[in-house]
């Protein structure tokens, strides 16, 4: 019997196959094919990218190919900083200038090292770049939301294979974000508690959905997972904004991110995935009800007409099974 489950924050229902669940073996993905084209993100090819915004790990201050993490504007931006966020009406329609920022965070000079294969201190640098860029962009009040995300693998939407993540700063708060923030506030209205803290507390004993807890962070397979092996990472303590993360928490976050990506890779092979950092909109008031987190969604199934029409996802792998299979993985160092 399939089961319907409701996400406690967004009220989104999913259909999960508890009867004959798909485990890791059925979903495993073979290694990716590598292309031999010249890569604009490789060291030495810096001139192929737009001018650098920031770089980490260079020994001197001189620009050169000895960086570890590099932030550049996206060459094919979805939104442009030169535009103005002017709002206009065309009859019943509304439009706005395509103002925004679209940046690429090149995670490593090594072309074929995924984030999960980098040393922990290198992952920490990547997270530091994320945080610093959020803090910098937040200064411009025209940005209402900054999304950090990663597309890994062609079927997850990556058009270049060199490991990179992206950042898009928007002149609006997207409706999906508003929906989540409102959902969390709704829960708090009648409970005076944070819904995400409640979710983590409910799983403290016995651990059904928790994959791992370390260094003040928890990786977790959410109850109403839309995708097989969907995994979220939360700070265990209540924190609303990613960009407020202190320096000393970047290392433990890097550790759990690396370990989670390794567990996923161990279970699913080189599965394409997306991750997104969900955080409180920077210009909004913090009423203490939102809890930032990273959502990792492996792309193993194809969203089709039913999901598009209903917003209702069909998940072949119950999250409790995914959590168990991920717990059983031994992450490397």
């Amino acid at each position, binding site marked *: *019997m399939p089961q*319907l489950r409701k996400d406690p924050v967004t009220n989104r229902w999913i*259909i999960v196959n508890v009867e004959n669940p798909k485990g890791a073996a059925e979903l495993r993905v073979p290694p990716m094919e590598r292309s031999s084209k010249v890569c604009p993100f490789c060291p030495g090819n810096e001139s192929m990218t737009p001018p650098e915004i920031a770089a980490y790990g260079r020994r001197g201050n001189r620009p050169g190919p000895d960086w570890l993490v590099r932030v550049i504007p996206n060459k094919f931006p979805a939104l442009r900083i030169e535009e103005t966020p002017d709002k206009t009406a065309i009859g019943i329609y509304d439009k*706005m200038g395509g103002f925004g920022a679209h940046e690429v965070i090149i995670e490593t000079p090594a072309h074929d090292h995924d984030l999960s294969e980098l040393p922990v201190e290198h992952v920490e640098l990547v997270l530091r770049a994320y945080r610093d860029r959020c803090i910098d962009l937040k200064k411009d009040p025209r940005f209402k939301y900054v999304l950090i*995300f990663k597309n890994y693998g*062609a079927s997850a939407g990556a058009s270049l294979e060199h490991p990179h993540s992206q950042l*898009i700063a928007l002149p609006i708060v997207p409706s999906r974000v508003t929906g989540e923030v409102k959902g969390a506030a709704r829960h708090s209205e009648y409970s005076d508690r944070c819904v995400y803290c409640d979710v983590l507390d409910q799983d403290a004993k016995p651990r059904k959905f928790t994959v791992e807890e370390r260094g003040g962070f928890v990786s977790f397979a959410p109850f109403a997972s839309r995708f097989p092996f969907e995994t979220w990472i939360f700070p265990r303590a209540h924190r609303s904004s990613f960009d407020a993360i202190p320096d000393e928490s970047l290392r433990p976050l890097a550790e759990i991110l690396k370990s989670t990506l390794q567990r996923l890779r161990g279970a699913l092979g080189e599965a394409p995935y997306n*991750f997104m950092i969900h955080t409180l909109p920077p210009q909004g008031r913090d009423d203490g009800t939102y809890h930032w987190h990273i959502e990792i969604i492996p792309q193993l199934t194809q969203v089709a007409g039913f999901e598009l029409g*209903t*917003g209702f996802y069909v998940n072949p792998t119950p999250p409790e099974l995914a959590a168990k299979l991920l717990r059983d993985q031994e992450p490397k160092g």
Partner: protein
Amino acid sequence: MPELRRDPVVGYWTIISTERSQRPVAPRQRAVSDERECPFCEGHESRTTSEVYAARREGTKPNGPGWDVRTIASKTPILSSDAALDRYGEGLYDLMEGAGHHEIIVESPKHKHDLDELAPAEIEKVVGVWARRILDLAKDPRFKFALLFKNHGVISGQGQDIVRHSRSQLIALPIIPKRVKEELLAAKAHYDRRERCVFCDVLRQETSDRSRIVAENDSFLAFCPFASRAPFEIWILPKRHSPDFGQIASTETPAFASILKDTLSRLRNLLDDPPYNTILHTAPYRHGKKEYWKTLDEDYHWYYQISPRLTRAAGFEWGTGIHINPTPPEEAARLMRETAPEVR
């Protein structure tokens, strides 16, 4: 120059960004399937699950040849018809047994890949069966909504429609899904403010503006919506205000069949048989609960959405719900108008 556009109904924003179209795209995979292997072809009835309904020629028997459109239970249903509607909680969480109904509507006895390859009279029959099955399922009080949709072609990287035989799927659900409810609530909000149907407003504006029109006849308008989430997204709206596809008039059926054929064949010719999804947006089952959607008859308007799958939702779309569309809908509509529909 990129531009943000807001959908007038639900209010989602879309980024129209032509620069993104210069990005490298992966080559498309093609599905090939052999007629002899196809379980949906006439004569192969024994290879499918048992027949739910069929538009049959006189004197033929169920589960045998002699049909024009045939409906069968899904082999891999995502919801089960036998489940009782049981809701319960687990601490913070809400659960429900997966009661529902999932069937496949095989649209031709012949091995045709796409609906537009059928003759207009054949498509009319298909449209008739869509309406009939939606109305039949309305009789079951467990169901609140039925979604008719189509997954056509193969999206690169993932197998989707491996058998090239034209069909739709129909799923009846015990709840009104969130996305459907959002659209219903948004249409109601527009009506509450202006006492007009938002879709009728859209029809009026598109009819006078004309830049986004793909095709038109006496009863229907096909156009690329202002805030199209997918390149070459098309909506087909009935010109007569009507909330419920099931109530399509017998006089409108030929016009709907003809605009479907016209639109789908232009799409195939222009984009070389692209993969696409279709979704029928129609009123939920009301079971006499008039108070729930008091003004639904006035505020909601059914339509048929066609969404080609030429781009891929990635982290940005998942994180924000905002889609990036590389083809402005005016451009898409112009190209569609300039493409000759197939005459068969």
